[in-house]
């Protein structure tokens, strides 16, 4: 459905997207994961025709976005990071406007009413968008993307700024839509990707460093003897102390987890079992070790580990994959039941 090949985008001398290739099949739901500034939004803006590219090719349903933008754009519903709303319009006026703008052929009233019901904004349809809360605005933006029932939905951080209840609602909605849409979803929030998407593309510094199912990514990285330790300590001092232990390759702080306790992900050099050494180090420094576990990396740990690596090639080696290869999604169909979020 979406084919991106050797895509690059330069802003002046800065290479924002660097030779990215992937393909997304009809009905797939794919998560773009990466830190802020990784190039997720730029790639989405290129697929939707908002930005041009420096090199490469993008097709949507076989149609080149550059050569035939109108036909390609008809197939895409886009929710940018900041919902594009005319705040001086009411919700209904805004959706009517998008309906006319997209030259949709469905019966207008029924179509818009249905979308408003789906995203639960019927009760605010007569209100000015400027008077709506962030959560409602996000949903109105989402409704705009759904007008015309496009095959492809591109959602750039759809849950940013929502409260936990709204995030859950949004996930349920996305899962519902995934049944008959092809969806690309970006986020730097990991549980969101994990719960909704079967396939994850991790992007860092404009390059794809991993393209696999969430489960496969976890498994591959769990093969090493990475240790997760929770310690009551000073974050920076302990990070340095742990890094000095023999056999330790890198230490990543996962942040404060409970009162005064920080969690660290400690990656050993291959062949080393560092659990005992870590225990001794913490004991010698007079700090309290609350827990120590190895293996079973969470997506959060994978993400931090991959994106903190300076060298993209190293990240790819760690995964033992060439990120250029699209994953075999047939195989992953049965993985990850997303209906019970």
């Amino acid at each position: 459905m979406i084919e991106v090949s050797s895509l690059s985008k330069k802003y002046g001398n800065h290479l924002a997207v660097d030779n990215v290739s992937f393909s997304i099949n009809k009905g797939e739901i794919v998560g773009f994961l990466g830190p802020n500034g990784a190039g997720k939004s730029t790639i989405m803006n290129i697929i939707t025709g908002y930005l041009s590219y420096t090199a490469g090719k993008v097709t949507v349903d076989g149609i080149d976005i550059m050569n035939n933008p109108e036909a390609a754009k008809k197939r895409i519903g886009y929710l940018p990071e900041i919902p594009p709303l005319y705040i001086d319009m009411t919700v209904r006026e805004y959706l009517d406007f998008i309906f006319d703008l997209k030259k949709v052929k469905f019966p207008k009233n029924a179509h818009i009413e249905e979308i408003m019901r789906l995203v639960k904004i019927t009760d605010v349809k007569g209100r000015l968008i400027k008077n709506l809360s962030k959560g409602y605005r996000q949903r109105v933006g989402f409704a705009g993307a759904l007008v015309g029932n496009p095959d492809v939905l591109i959602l750039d951080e759809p849950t940013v700024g929502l409260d936990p209840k709204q995030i859950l609602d949004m996930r349920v909605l996305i899962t519902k839509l995934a049944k008959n849409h092809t969806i690309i979803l970006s986020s730097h929030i990991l549980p969101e990707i994990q719960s909704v998407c079967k396939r994850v593309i991790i992007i860092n510094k404009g390059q794809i460093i991993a393209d696999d199912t969430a489960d496969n990514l976890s498994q591959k990285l769990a093969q090493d003897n990475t240790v997760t330790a929770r310690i009551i300590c000073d974050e920076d001092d302990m990070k340095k102390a742990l890094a000095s232990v023999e056999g330790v390759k890198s230490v990543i702080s996962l942040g404060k987890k409970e009162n005064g306790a920080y969690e660290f992900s400690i990656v050993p050099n291959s062949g080393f079992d560092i659990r005992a050494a870590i225990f001794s180090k913490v004991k010698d420094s007079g700090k309290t070790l609350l827990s120590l576990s190895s293996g079973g990396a969470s997506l959060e740990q994978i993400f931090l580990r991959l994106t903190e690596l300076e060298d993209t090639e190293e990240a790819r080696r760690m995964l033992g994959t060439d990120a250029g290869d699209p994953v075999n999604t047939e195989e992953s169909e049965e993985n990850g039941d997303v209906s019970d979020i």
Partner: protein
Amino acid sequence: MLAIFKREFKSYFKTPIGYIFLAAYYFFFGLFFSRYFEGGFTLVPQLLISMAMIVTFTLPIITMRLLSEDRRQKVDQLILTAPVRLSSIVLGKFFAAFLVYAIGFAPTVIFEIIVAGRVKVNVFSYFYALLGMFLLGAALISIGLFISSLTESPAMAAMITLVINILAIFMSSLAVLVDIDWLSKICDKLAFVSAVDSFEKTVFSIPDIVYFLSITAAFLFLTVRSLEKKRWA
């Protein structure tokens, strides 16, 4: 194009801008007409042309937000990713602003009828002067639209447009200050004020019509290019 035109036109009257703009036009038309009429003045075409200055100073108000506001609110992402051609976006916005401008001239129809009831008038000269003002308006709106595509700040767009409008109108007066013969001749020919003045006479002047139409077309084209260029930034 129609969707953009409708939205843009309505938006003038969701904020005070449309009302203030029209109120200002009606005020000045009313003032000029009542003053002139008392003094036995019966030439509505002249009245129309005398509005050129006010048009120059007020048009930036209705063009400043056309594209800059969309960028500031990030709504351009909606319009530019919709299956619409760039030229349709630009034309939709242009005609919305033009319609508001044209409505500003509505009272002159009444003036012409009042005058026609008292003395014999040349209806052609009224419509010809109206055409002149519409052409001037179209040219200035297209300039304003273009400037609005260059910035995210409506205030900045209004300021720059105002400066350019003043230059376009008073080019010949400014050229006199520079003591270069050929330059002042060119400026004299290009100045909007001399082109508009010709519409006061009843002589049909193709060059002046073509002049304004080409300015309008050129700036509409530049606006489309400016939107296109942003994709490549």
